């Protein structure tokens, strides 16, 4: 086990290194530079001086080694869009909101998704099954950039029940978290339904039934509890998706998160920010996948034997 863990950690480091390198050079393929408008304002000579100040006049391989040296010391450079603010501090500052929003939306999607999935399984192939799954799927069929402004307008302005945007108090969390949850409800509902169906055909459920346990007790104590286990193992990757996929909801509800940073960084050629965020996102993903695998292996030893090497 320890050997396996060590090996995985080494692979993770290699993966991240390849990603940093690839991102670094991919970025240089982007036409233009981080100075967009400044370049128009300045004379070519002064612009060359400015570029030299940022070390962008050096050959790319040299820039790469300087950058890697800094990364190894935990220094991801200073953002070009926000002079003086380090990439790390921007991530620290904005990730809080994205993380909170993601986790809160996960609560919605777990509650609704597992509920719908379990209900669908209990009503297998009946109207209830179809209805529950239909509701779950509707959530992933409407783009979040439609549903979010609709919520903001109708619930925020027309009804005035919740704030139409901003990130000030607990009430401000509800709509964005719900809007973000819609995308994951279907995944969880599907998983839960399949898992429940599988569990319901197992022998111990039959035994429980024949012993005369009430169906309520069977469902609650035996089926749901056992069916949830495999669902838990996919929560990790889902959480990563939710936390990193907050762009639209953040923009619409004016949440100070990390999502929109990524897009503006790419379109404005903020090199340090792009690489910093890519490494950050990639690291979260790789680590969560790793932890999930470990957890999975601990829960179900068969998995570790099959297939993994």
């Amino acid at each position, binding site marked *: 086990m320890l050997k396996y863990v060590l090996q995985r950690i080494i692979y993770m480091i290699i993966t991240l290194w390849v990603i940093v390198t690839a991102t670094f050079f991919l970025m240089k393929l982007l036409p*233009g530079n981080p100075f*967009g408008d400044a370049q128009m*304002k*300045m*004379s070519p*000579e002064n612009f060359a001086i400015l570029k030299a100040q940022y070390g962008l006049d050096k050959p790319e391989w040299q820039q790469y080694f300087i950058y890697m040296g800094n990364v190894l010391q935990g220094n991801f450079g200073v953002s070009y869009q*926000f*002079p003086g603010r380090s990439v790390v501090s921007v991530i620290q500052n904005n990730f809080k909101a994205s993380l909170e929003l993601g986790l809160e939306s996960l609560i919605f999607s777990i509650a609704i998704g597992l509920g719908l999935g379990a209900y669908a399984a209990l009503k297998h192939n009946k109207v209830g099954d179809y209805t529950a799954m239909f509701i779950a799927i509707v959530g992933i069929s409407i783009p979040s950039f439609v549903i979010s402004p609709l919520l903001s307008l109708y619930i925020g302005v027309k009804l005035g029940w919740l704030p139409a945007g901003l990130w000030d108090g607990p009430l401000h969390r509800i709509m964005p978290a719900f809007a973000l949850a819609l995308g994951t409800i279907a995944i969880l509902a599907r998983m839960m339904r399949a898992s429940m169906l599988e569990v319901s055909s197992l022998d111990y459920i039959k035994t429980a039934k024949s012993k005369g346990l009430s169906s309520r007790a069977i469902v609650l104590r035996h089926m749901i509890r056992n069916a949830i286990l495999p669902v838990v193992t996919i929560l990790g990757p889902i959480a990563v998706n939710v936390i990193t996929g907050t762009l639209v909801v953040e923009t619409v509800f*004016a949440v100070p998160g990390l999502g929109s940073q990524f897009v503006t960084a790419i379109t404005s050629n903020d090199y340090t920010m792009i690489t910093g965020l890519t490494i950050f996102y990639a690291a979260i993903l790789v680590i969560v996948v790793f932890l999930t695998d470990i957890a999975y292996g601990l829960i179900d030893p068969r998995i570790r034997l099959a297939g993994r090497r």
Partner: protein
Amino acid sequence: MKFKKILSTAMAVTLAGSLLAACSSNNNSNKGSEPTGSAQASAPASSGAKQELVMNYRAEPPALDVSIAETSAAFTVLGAVSEGLYRLNKDMQPEPGLASALPEISADGLTYTIKLRDGLQWSDGSPLTAKDFVYSFRRTLDPATKATYAFIVAWVKGGEDVMAAKSADDVKAAQEKLGVEAKDDTTLVITLERPVPFFTSLLSFLTFYPQKEDFVGPLGEKGGTDADKVIGAGPFLLKSWDHDQKLVLEKNDKYWDAANVKLTKVTLNIVKDNSTGLNLYDSGASDFQVLSGEQYMNLKGNPELVLKPELVTGYLNFQETKVPAFKNQKIRQAFSMAIDRQGLVDTILQGSVPSTGFVPLGNLDGDSQEFRAVAGDAQVAFDPAKAKELLAEGLKDEGLTQMPKVSIMGDDHSTGPKVLEFLVGQWEQNLGVKVVASPMPHASRVDNELKKNYDIVSSLWGADYNDPMTWLDMYLTGSSLNTQDWSNAKYDELIKEAQTTTDAKKRAANLVEAEKVLLEEAAISPLYFRSIPVMVKSKVQDLIQPPYGPEFELKWTSIK
């Protein structure tokens, strides 16, 4: 080329969302004579109302550092937190700010002697002296500061030498020779490289603000990145700054004119999407919101709606080397003539005005007249039939049977793609020419433009200082901004003469004449003068919205 180009800060603005705005021609009749978008008529603030203002703001300001700031977001906040020698009032005239009176200017127009007010203080209570200006100018010019607006300060004598200095020692030596001097604590003398007719009003520009050495120095690159790393001597101080979320300004009691500052607190909530912004405005969570053209159209007639004309022109360039057909004047004219500008403004840019030239409405001519009022309508008029004729003639001149395939490049955010879409439709329907639309991210567009890698490009240009030279010197032969490779000897002569003459009348006449040449040849094709529609709650009094520089001016604002 001595004068470097200033790109509109408003360009950075457009990144945030559909800010490009809109209006139809019927309600802009008074715009020419009244360049300022002042919210409501002045009225004394009643003592009852809470003097607090909540505004939606479209973007997180980058570093609030006087030397480094280059976006209108930074100009706006720093304009409230600090102050220059002068502050532009609602008529865009410089009023003494930290200076006690307008400057004494030497006969050759090169030396400015400025007296500061007595007893000026930074917001931390320490004294502000003429030395803080000297430090500020020197710091901005130091290449290590990486200031993109340094070239404006470089108009001060010896400025170019500081910018070009190679080593730290050279920088220091050049800084010593810089034409800015603190004669005593309250006397500042600035010497220019050559006369700049609008320099007094330029001194109100952010880059000429003072900086406190023992505050800014130790912070280094971290300066202006958090509320506790910003200091000023303006009407407000930056109380808190939650990045990407909100900024809170509070009244600065140490400000010299604190008695006339009525607001006690201003909250700027960062809201990037203007549909959400309007939702917040409607639900009472905000007193100020910028509108999209579509929103403007549907709110027309609302008493809270204000239209703010800017010194910004949207226009097209034709690259003449890459597409030799564009060397032909008739072909350029045909492309320009085939565009229904009124249609463009009615369809996409509601609130803006169809262009009648390159220099926008409200821009002065350097001789205290409005440029457009003197120059009149210099634009080739919309005429599809004539356009077709001209195209046929032009192609015949060039020995071509049909127009070669060309594409038009533009920004892929805000109204950028829609403008491309509109133009492509116009050329196909009015001229029978197929043009491919190529929207791309702003940074790529600018880069391709400067590398002359385009056929037609749709851009925006905005003024930072109120003079036609900011528009016209960019089309001099060989100018780095003349990306289209157009060249005209008469034009060059007119501009060069204007750059050197001290006769303001002649200078203005030359510039009017030069624009005429530029437009008669259809070297460029202006499309519209931009205006921005804004919703402001009627309780907000005297919120000045200048046509260039900062987006709004809070010093005189009050709540009724």
